[in-house]
């Protein structure tokens, strides 16, 4: 049933029945409680913002309602009717769709084919009615003011344009009840963001409920009708947008005093903030004017021996890209990198490793480990050459190095020959950490080291990082976890949209300051 523009759907605003109502929704992934008994309602024909820090459970909630995951317990009601979606297709047929940050499309085909794939309008004899399809596609694109030609090839589109294709597809399939937008504006230019908001408002007027998941508070101010804030998987509040200003929302999102960080976890609460190191060694890593066209530009900072520099910012700000460029995984378009004062020429991971610079990637299983190999094999992978003589590997030396580091980092496993895939998230992270410590690096770049691991291991990782700094390592800690940034960072660099938008010493680094610097947009310049 394709919603023809202009008609208002039944059950629109004010008729009492909630478009989406979630009660006692809980979901945990191997020890990590992503959602804990979350309940709230969203009225029909309303733009709703779902806010919270990284790991607050926003994406998990969206994935459950849109059929990608199934909740452990709790129920989802659509227009008062309890529904359970096992696949994205089931959700779509019920009128619920989620548009993710990296849209899943077919690059070789054009915009219209991507919109109507699987639901193409047919002639009587079953062949695709191309004329009607392209007209309908042009109509949808024009309706969305996407400014896209129906015959444009998807391979040539920007992320923003791809998102418009996903919207057009949702409308083509008559998805008109509930639309989730997960971090839609992260990769959009200001003009694209304005266009997006105009479309969202028009959809709302037609009765569709739209749920915005975003960090960009200032963007949402004059758009959103009501707000729900989640923190650490728990529902904090659901209020009308008018009742909250930006500062109040930030306080709700992050506003918990350091003391009651994790109620009931003694070892974390007892973590005292790191004493600012008295003496700092010389500059181990210094980056000057580093840039990657279209991703980040003129990034310059130094990291001294014994110092932990925290790099804060929102998802998609370009911090991982900066780290990978420093590590030599991707060549920079300009800029220089000095390790221990020496300018590094052609850079690739192997060369940076030989200079003592190690990089713990954000995607643990995809880039940090080889899941099917044993703990030992993973651990010694970078230093196989050093431990071998004349190219022949010596299992004895490998075994004792890995046993030493496994014990040192308290990796919980029966034997070090156990496949890494059988370990918990926390232990896998420790294996990656051990892998880099085993080559005793001078500089260590950690990209979201405590992302998605249980609280206990998180504290232990913090302790390890602290002891490494004391031993004189220069550490660059990339993290979206504000408390972690505040507690671990001697200095805090904030990155937004590929630019450094703020540098704070330990003294004046507050959550509010960092949060506002992190969400400062390139043009809005507020």
């Amino acid at each position, binding site marked *: 049933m394709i919603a023809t523009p202009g008609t208002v759907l039944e059950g629109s605003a004010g008729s009492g029945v909630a478009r989406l109502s979630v009660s006692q929704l809980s979901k945990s992934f191997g020890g990590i409680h992503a959602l804990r008994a979350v309940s709230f309602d969203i009225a029909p024909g309303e733009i709703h913002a779902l806010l919270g820090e990284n790991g607050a459970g926003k994406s998990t909630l969206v994935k459950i309602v849109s059929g990608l995951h199934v909740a452990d317990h709790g129920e989802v009601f659509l227009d008062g009717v309890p529904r359970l979606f096992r696949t994205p297709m089931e959700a779509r047929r019920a009128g619920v769709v989620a548009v993710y940050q990296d849209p899943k499309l077919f690059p070789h085909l054009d915009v219209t084919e991507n919109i109507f794939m699987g639901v193409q309008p047919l002639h009587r004899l079953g062949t695709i009615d191309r004329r009607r399809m392209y007209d309908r596609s042009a109509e949808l694109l024009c309706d969305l003011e996407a400014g896209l030609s129906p015959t444009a090839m998807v391979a040539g589109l920007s992320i923003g344009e791809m998102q418009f294709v996903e919207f057009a597809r949702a409308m083509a399939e008559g998805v008109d009840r509930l639309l989730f937008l997960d971090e839609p504006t992260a990769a959009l230019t200001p003009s694209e963001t304005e266009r997006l908001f105009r479309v969202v408002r028009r959809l709302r007027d037609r009765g569709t409920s739209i749920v915005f998941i975003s960090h960009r508070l200032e963007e949402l101010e004059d758009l959103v009708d009501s707000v729900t804030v989640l923190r650490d998987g728990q529902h904090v509040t659901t209020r009308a947008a008018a009742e909250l200003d930006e500062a109040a929302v930030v306080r709700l999102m992050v506003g918990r005093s350091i003391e009651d960080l994790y109620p009931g976890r003694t070892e974390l609460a007892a973590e005292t903030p790191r004493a600012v190191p008295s003496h700092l060694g010389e500059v181990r890593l210094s980056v000057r004017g580093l840039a990657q066209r279209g991703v980040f530009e003129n990034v310059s900072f130094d990291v001294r021996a014994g110092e932990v520099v925290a790099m804060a910012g929102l998802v998609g700000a370009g911090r991982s890209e900066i780290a990978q460029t420093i590590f030599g995984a991707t060549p920079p378009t300009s800029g220089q990198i000095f390790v221990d004062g020496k300018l590094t020429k052609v850079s690739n991971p192997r060369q940076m490793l030989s200079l003592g610079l190690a990089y713990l990637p954000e995607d643990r*299983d*995809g880039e940090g480990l080889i*899941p*099917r190999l044993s703990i030992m094999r993973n651990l010694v992978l970078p230093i196989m050459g050093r431990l071998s003589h004349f190219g022949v590997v010596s299992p004895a030396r490998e075994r004792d190095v890995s046993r030493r580091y496994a014990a040192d980092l308290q990796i919980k496993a029966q034997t070090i020959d156990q*496949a890494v*895939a*059988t370990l918990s998230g926390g232990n896998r992270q420790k294996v990656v950490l051990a892998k880099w410590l085993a080559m005793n690096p001078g500089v260590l770049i950690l990209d979201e080291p405590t992302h998605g691991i249980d609280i206990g291991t998180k504290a232990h990782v913090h302790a390890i990082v602290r002891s490494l700094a004391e031993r004189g390592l220069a550490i660059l800690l990339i993290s979206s976890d504000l408390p972690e940034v505040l507690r671990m960072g001697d200095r805090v660099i904030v990155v937004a949209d590929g630019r450094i938008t703020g540098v704070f010493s330990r003294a004046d680094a507050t959550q509010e300051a960092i949060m506002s610097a992190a969400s400062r947009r390139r043009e809005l310049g507020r």
Partner: protein
Amino acid sequence: MDKEMIRRCTEAMNEGRMSRRKWLQLMLASGLSMSTISAMLANTGVLVGRADAATPLRVFNVPKFTGFVYFELAKAGGEKACKELGAQQIYIGTTTADVEGQVHVLQNIVPQRPDCIVIAALDINAPVPTLKQARRRGAIVVTFDADVAPAGRDLFINMAPFDVQARAMLESALANAPDGGKAIWIAPTPTVANFISQKKAIDDLIAKDPKFKSIQFVDTLYANDDADKSYSIGTSAMQAHPDLKLFISGSGISTPAINKAIQDTDRVGKVFATGFALPSTMKTYLSSGTCKQYALWSPYKYGYMATYFAILLKSGKIKNAEGVAVDVPTIGSRTIEEGSVADLSSMLFFSKGHDDFDTATPMT
């Protein structure tokens, strides 16, 4: 690739160590499939000549490749000779003209301690080491249709001396085009020994005998004993030489294929393709007049004579020496010439009305 890896390793993890039951299950399934394959082989009649020591002389007939009617007829001839002389023939070969394949077949025959091997070899040298091994173990090796280096065999039965072959082909050519004309010689490859000798004999005969002077060769093309290639070469050559009169080929595969090309490009009566070919493949062209006459020896008699000599040599009835004459039933007296070669030379001409082996007119 990583998602695929994770999926497969989680799949691996939960299947993890093969439980005792699953391991047995796998064993049973694989064992079962192995035994069904071997059982199938054992009783599909494909399994020929289940050898046991007590039976009479065992003669292995190895063609260039199985599935070609020429060698099937030779096999039938060999069968008859074995029945008459109380021996047992085992016909085994590769499906494609693959030199190694044929050597593998021979390598599987040697341990079966064969009494005689009658072989149409695909290469002059490749089979020699294995044939030598068979002869060391007392086997008599007789080659026919294509010879190997003398060290590898006891006797070679030549279809006919090359001048007889040349005469048969040229006479067929004249029968098609009485006043001769431009001709093209078709051979499988530039280097196959007996085709080179055939062409030389033809050239000598044209130079020597005024009767064939009217035939002049304008080109030589190679068709790799492949019907499709011969067809396309034939069509292309007819374009290249609009005034072409004759195709002459010693290959039983090229001659019929070019006849079809002549028919398809409706040049019947203008261009003729003759030489050696098999009756079964040429019937339509004889009846439609595309080809008036071609020649061939009888593969049936060829197989018969080769096997006949092999059994006599093995049973000691005759010695493999020059000048030894043997009266071969239905063929006549044939003598072993110098270099231990004997000629079948019972050429036949095939024309309309005489288009198979029993009605063909023997060449004088």
